[in-house]
């Protein structure tokens, strides 16, 4: 495939892909309306192309991108499940898409009813009392959740300054804690991949505001000691935070609230089937147990006497974390997803997600090293150290998978597994797709034996070959400039 020029390089002076009506009101000169000092003299260097040129350009770009509909996407911790098309149609309905956020409440009862309904359903699924739908992504939900934890302690007159995070946690956990002004204490995992109870007990004291936990964790393993963990944290006055990025294994089976978690965020763009958009928009609602509802970001949708309204009068709220009410069209898609599944359907989602992950685990455990040989939940984590001995890294294997038309698994995460390869097949993949993927990995294993260079120099069939990422970071070129 040829390289695609930058849109700026396709510019021809005074071409335009857009037509506007002529001005139908009496006009004044711009100098009469705008003080001279503010008038722009140097126009922004925007492209000048026709509509067909623009459409071809972005179509060409799309063909250089791999989407979920392109093929299997077993990216661990990302829950790349199929995104039902009907949800795209629903989100584009006039009555959802063309609504201004400041319209009078009487004119947006449908939007508010949908949000209230989604809040209720997420609360039931996770065993929490209420959700705020405001956070725009998982990390944003973590931020709001940690604010709630801080506000809770402050309201009780306690100054707790530290958050415990296991060494297997997502990078966003410590980063979010730091954003809220907490110090981070890292606790090691035990030999079964769970939380080390002795270390946890030793770390707990009156400075600890809470523990952030992912369960099932990033190894794809369910921590059997969860009730004991919750007790240790609660007995020491801390709160338990659930990183719900990995919730695809538990729907209808167990609930964070029943496990003892106090604050939860869910990624609608993972578990609830809304598309990732190539890096967003996501949505990361944050839910809490009953006595923490008063700390939720405001406004919250309430219902009274047949009418939905936005409640701003919440004096203990942590405040607002975003303008308006959340990524509404993502909420529409998640609402539609849950309504299309129902209680049985959601449980089946989790059962099949776990079955698929265990099928992969079982089929590949002789090929790779399995650091924790247990039944997994929604994802499984292997180590590629056997292959590394032969001079081939998991990065090489991932790149070779590109040649066979796959999006590779997550690599080098979680950090506690050397040469980690983390696979999350999700429930929407068939046995045939998994078998084909397993077969392909088998072929790559043979290539490692017979022609390792082929793997180490992969990919060979993509529009670009391996990139010089070191040069990119050392001499950053992060925008185009017209060459003089």
């Amino acid at each position: 495939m040829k390289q695609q020029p930058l849109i700026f390089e396709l510019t021809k002076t005074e071409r335009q892909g857009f037509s506007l009506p002529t001005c139908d009101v009496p006009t004044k000169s711009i100098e009469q309306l705008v003080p001279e000092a503010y008038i722009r003299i140097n126009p922004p260097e925007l492209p000048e192309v026709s509509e067909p040129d623009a459409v071809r350009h972005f179509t060409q770009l799309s063909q250089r991108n791999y989407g979920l509909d392109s093929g299997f996407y077993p990216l661990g911790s990302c829950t790349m499940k199929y995104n039902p098309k009907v949800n795209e149609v629903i989100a584009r309905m006039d009555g959802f898409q063309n609504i201004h956020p400041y319209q009078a409440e009487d004119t947006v009862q449908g939007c508010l009813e949908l949000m209230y309904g989604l809040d209720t359903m997420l609360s039931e699924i996770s065993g929490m009392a209420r959700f705020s739908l405001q956070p725009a992504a998982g990390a944003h939900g973590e931020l709001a959740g940690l604010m709630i934890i801080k506000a809770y302690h402050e309201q009780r007159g306690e100054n707790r300054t530290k958050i415990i995070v296991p060494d297997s946690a997502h990078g966003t956990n410590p980063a979010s804690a730091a954003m809220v002004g907490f110090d981070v204490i890292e606790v090691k995992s035990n030999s079964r991949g769970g939380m080390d109870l002795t270390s946890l007990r030793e770390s707990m004291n009156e400075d600890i505001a809470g523990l952030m936990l992912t369960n099932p964790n990033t190894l794809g393993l369910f921590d059997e000691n969860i009730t004991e963990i919750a007790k240790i944290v609660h007995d020491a006055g801390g709160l338990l935070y659930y990183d719900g990025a990995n919730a695809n294994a538990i729907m209808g089976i167990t609930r964070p609230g029943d496990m003892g978690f106090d604050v939860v965020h869910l990624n609608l763009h993972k578990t609830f089937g809304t598309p990732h958009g190539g890096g967003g928009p996501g949505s990361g609602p944050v839910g809490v147990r009953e006595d923490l509802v008063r700390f939720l970001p405001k406004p919250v949708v309430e219902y009274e006497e047949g009418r939905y309204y936005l409640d701003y009068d919440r004096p203990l709220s942590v405040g607002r974390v975003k303008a308006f009410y959340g990524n509404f069209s993502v909420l529409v898609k998640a609402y539609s997803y849950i309504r299309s599944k129902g209680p049985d359907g959601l449980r089946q989602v989790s059962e099949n997600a776990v079955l698929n992950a265990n099928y992969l685990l079982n089929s590949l455990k002789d090929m790779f090293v399995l650091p924790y040989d247990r039944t997994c939940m929604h994802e499984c984590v292997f180590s590629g150290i056997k292959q590394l001995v032969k001079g081939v890294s998991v990065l090489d294997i991932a790149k070779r998978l590109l040649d066979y038309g796959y999006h590779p698994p997550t690599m080098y995460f979680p950090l506690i597994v050397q040469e980690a390869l983390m696979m999350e097949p999700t429930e929407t993949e068939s046995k045939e797709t998994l078998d084909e993927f397993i077969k392909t990995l088998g072929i790559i294993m043979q290539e490692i034996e017979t022609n390792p260079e082929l793997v180490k120099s992969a990919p060979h069939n993509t529009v670009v070959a391996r990139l010089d990422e070191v040069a990119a970071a050392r001499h950053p070129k992060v925008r185009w400039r017209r060459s003089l």
Partner: protein
Amino acid sequence: MSQQEMLNQIGLGTVEELFGDIPQEVRLSRDLNLPVALSEFELLNHTQNLSRKNLNLNDHTCFLGAGAYDHFIPSAVDALLSRQEFYTAYTPYQPEISQGMLQAIFEFQTMICELTGMDIANASMYDGASALAEAMLLACQSQKRQEVLVARTVHPESREVLKTYAKFRGLTVREVGYLDGQLNIQELKETVTSDTAAIIVQNPNFFGTMESLGEIGEIAHNNKALFIVSADPISLGILKSPGELGADIVVGEGQSLGNPLNFGGPYLGFFAVKEKLLRKIPGRIVGETKDKNGNRSFTLTIQTREQHIRREKATSNICSNQALNALAATIYLTLLGKQGLKEVALLSLQKSHYAFEQLTSHDNFSPVFSSPFFKEFVIQSVVSPQELNRKLLDHKIIGGYPLEQTYPELTNGWLVAVTEKRTKEEIDSFVLKAGGQ
């Protein structure tokens, strides 16, 4: 059945055995209490009914803005966004199969730099308000100071988000009042201290009024504070860029650039800085490099700032941003081009001034400020704006934003927005109905 086949291969008899690690005491021993599943057809009917409980802007004429604007969106934008290769993809972690999104973001970063007059832009933030909060955090960290000054003319919700982010980091946000709809420069001079990390303004501000950016920037720099501007990207088609007027960080709400109103989101925040702040900025950045065959290619770069590497020492926790919304903005700005953006800005400017003159020539309305404005303005009505809006709704018109809820001193203040979409006929009818005839 393949399920049983798969179980057999794993060596298990039932699906139930897969969940053996979950202790019985935390199992859900009942069905989830949720409505039963709907078929696709039933789901469409159900959601269509729900959506019809809202009044939408296809059936109504909109004079409401206040941070979210009814600009025209060319059809090609959604057609291109609907390509699955874009909207169903994950963050472009595998550059070899993500060149499309990476190149589009590189183009987006360039366009934002061009609009704002800055050197570096990131791949987007959640929205304009959270981008402003991240700018505040950057300024406090970079200047090693604990306080920021924000104009009361900045969007009320942006100021709320600033305060939320500041409160939990032990930072102080002090507000500076306004005079004739613009930041009160005298008050600013009296408020700024040697602990001020940044002065934060919005331009055009929440009232639609233009701020004296150059003068405010000088005050910031004389006090070794950073100058942060939240800009309306459409206005930058005709207004001098904040970069030319001394801004160190320019952020803004990018909804106007090809994104539907969607009851408040998803929108996108943009975030641009001068070169010296490159390694301090939050979020994803795409950079140009070469592949091993020497071909131009694009990749996420300078990732040592980010949470997945730096963990608690990262510049921010942001991970997913608003990539698809940034793509919409890129396509929109491509279609408009250099001339089109200027035309949209000029039409909005002319039409809002026409509406302002028509309204204020009516006995029921009077101007509140005399400062220059762009596409939005404040007038005072003799009756309450809520009542006016209710009346206008009967004529399928969505009226302006009642200001008293956030600015109690502006009795019966009404914030009216007029974009390029409003025709003379619509404006005349709006004025006539609002005037009570």
